């Protein structure tokens, strides 16, 4: 099946672009185009009134504390629409700082900041920062999800909220439970920051499939030649499983 179109909203790219976050949007677009489907990318900037009615996938990245604060305040005005989008099965990928925004609250310094409350979780802080390569086993990816995490926050999932997966290497949500990220309806939240999707094509296709299912009632995807992506994934998995020194 081809000739379908998805609309991807990149939320506040000029503020939340700390670690190559834009790579995720590029990957979603390319993987649709390679299948002869189309992708329209809508950038939502500060001062815009984001509307989620025509959106299939929303992406929110990470930023510095200051930038994350600006975004959170901005998005709180749209909380009702965002909640409706998520409850309706809209696909939302939130990484790093964006992941923290999904919850009821997070800490900025010692101050508790109200989050979007889209998923039953909250974030407090701990020392030290949890930094380094990470590998996560998850039902949304045939390969372990690999990437990099760098966060002072410790995220605690509410009762019954499914983690994105189990940490094989690295720290994850809080460095204690062995859980990483969250899955809720079609929301994926994770501390695997920046370019999550390039080396994890399974996650990219999971998001695309969910969005196509919601819009067209058929989420089947033609397979792609992912030799380069899978090789890059495997190199890191092998390296981490061989016991790379954790930071």
């Amino acid at each position, binding site marked *: 099946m081809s000739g379908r179109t998805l609309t991807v909203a990149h939320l506040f790219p*000029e*503020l939340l*672009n*700390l*670690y*190559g*976050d*834009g*790579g995720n949007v*590029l*990957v979603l677009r*390319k993987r649709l185009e390679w299948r002869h489907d189309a992708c329209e990318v809508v950038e939502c900037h*500060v001062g815009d009134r984001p509307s989620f009615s025509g959106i299939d996938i929303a992406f929110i990245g990470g930023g*510095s*504390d*200051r*930038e994350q604060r*600006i975004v959170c305040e901005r998005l709180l005005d749209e909380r009702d629409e965002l909640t409706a989008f998520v409850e309706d099965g809209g696909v939302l990928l939130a990484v790093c700082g964006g992941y923290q925004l999904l919850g009821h609250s997070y800490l900025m310094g010692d101050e508790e900041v109200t989050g979007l409350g889209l998923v039953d979780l909250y974030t407090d802080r701990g020392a030290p920062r949890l*930094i*380094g*390569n990470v590998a996560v086993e998850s039902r949304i990816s045939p390969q372990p999800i690999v990437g*990099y995490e*760098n966060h002072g926050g410790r995220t605690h999932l509410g009762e019954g909220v499914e983690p994105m997966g189990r940490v094989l290497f690295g720290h994850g949500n809080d460095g204690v439970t062995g859980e990483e990220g969250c899955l809720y309806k079609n929301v994926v939240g994770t501390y695997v*920051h*920046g*370019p999550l999707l*390039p*080396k994890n094509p399974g996650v990219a296709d999971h998001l695309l499939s969910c969005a196509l299912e919601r819009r067209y009632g058929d989420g089947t995807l033609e397979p792609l030649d992912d030799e*380069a*992506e899978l*090789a*890059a994934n495997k*190199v890191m998995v092998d390296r981490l499983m061989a016991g790379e020194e954790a*930071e």
Partner: protein
Amino acid sequence: MGLRSSLACGLGGLTRWGLRNVLHRSASQMPGRIAMAVDPDVISDLASRLGGDSVVVCGTNGKTTTNNVLAAAVEASGATVACNHAGANMAAGVAAALLEDVGADHAVMEADELSTIHILPALKPRYLILLNLFRDQLDRAGEIDHVADVIVSALAASPDTTLVTCGDDPLCMGVAWRAREAGTRVLTFGVAEDLRLPADRVPEARFCQRCGAELSYEYRTYAQLGAFSCPKCDFARPELDWRATSVSVGREGVSFDVSGAGFDSPVRVSASFGGVYMVYNLMAAFVGASLLGVDAPTFQRSLDSYHPENGRLQHFRVGGRDVVLNLAKNPTGFNQNISLMQADDRPKAAFFVINDDYNDGRDISWIWDVDFERLADEEGLVVLAGGHRANDVQVRMRYAGIPAEIAGSVSAALEACSTIPVDHPLYVLTNYSALWPAKAELERIGEGSES
């Protein structure tokens, strides 16, 4: 100089001798570490023995080149200079360089941004040159706001240091604005005309450092640098103390006029290497040199004979092919290198080498912020991926629409280029820890390094 610092200097000197003569190792840091362990105040003790002023150069990109050009010019004027040429830019490297030339006329030191907090209060330089601030090695340096905070604190701890900075960079001017509020004297340089270059991507946030509004630009030179102003408050590119005009940037090099404080008429500066970022580096070096009393003809003469052999824009010839080696360790640096490649109108090959050693930053997410897409339409371009993260580079290229094979070394990359005409140059762009092996390999296989 007290007994303890004499002992520190003595031990440092002995270590240097031992490293060089017994172990045949470079002595850029270890003697400094040992001296500092014996006497934590060794930098300030040694600084007090300098004959004249010192200058510290920092900034995300270009500090090694700027510092070395500046030091060479000061030496060309006949003065003696203590300088951390090799780029050992933390406190121990500065201490080691001071030990090397105890009692020199001047110290000209490159400093890692986060090390300014240790170096400035001890060295108390007359000038701190801050070139630019970009995202770099985030997992180690922390967020850019933190880097700015550290530099502001370092200046506060060295109140007689004048900040000489790039007026075109809103992030530098954010530092300058806060430092000035705290009493630091600030001087600025910048490009005072629209260069009309093709716009590159702006990886940094272009927001007002005072009120957070999005800045507007009369023109941009590269990245977030340009004639900026805030539409909501009075944060803007300042009245520049030194201005570059009649700027020419091309494959053959850069040239520009400098006018401003200390010059009755504009002075032409030219170099046979560079890109637009080099205009800023050379201007900073020129300004720094003139503040240390170097006259313009001496600066130009010194620049004419400056042949970088530190892997920064170094040219080699291998099997008749022109090979250009350069450091590219963050998005802005890489984007500037892509501009340099595009200024070269020959069809070409490129070898992008990315490592993730500690000194590189373990996190290489930033390769997704580089505008590789600009290369996708280059006719005849051949790209190879290398380094510990060659696979990541290959994936990045795939999504930029550029097929790239993996090559394990510069020789392998050259071998892969053997089917393309020998007059197509190979650009080898590497991040930090990949630079020295590539340079060593090119020195081994090249037909003599040239400049």
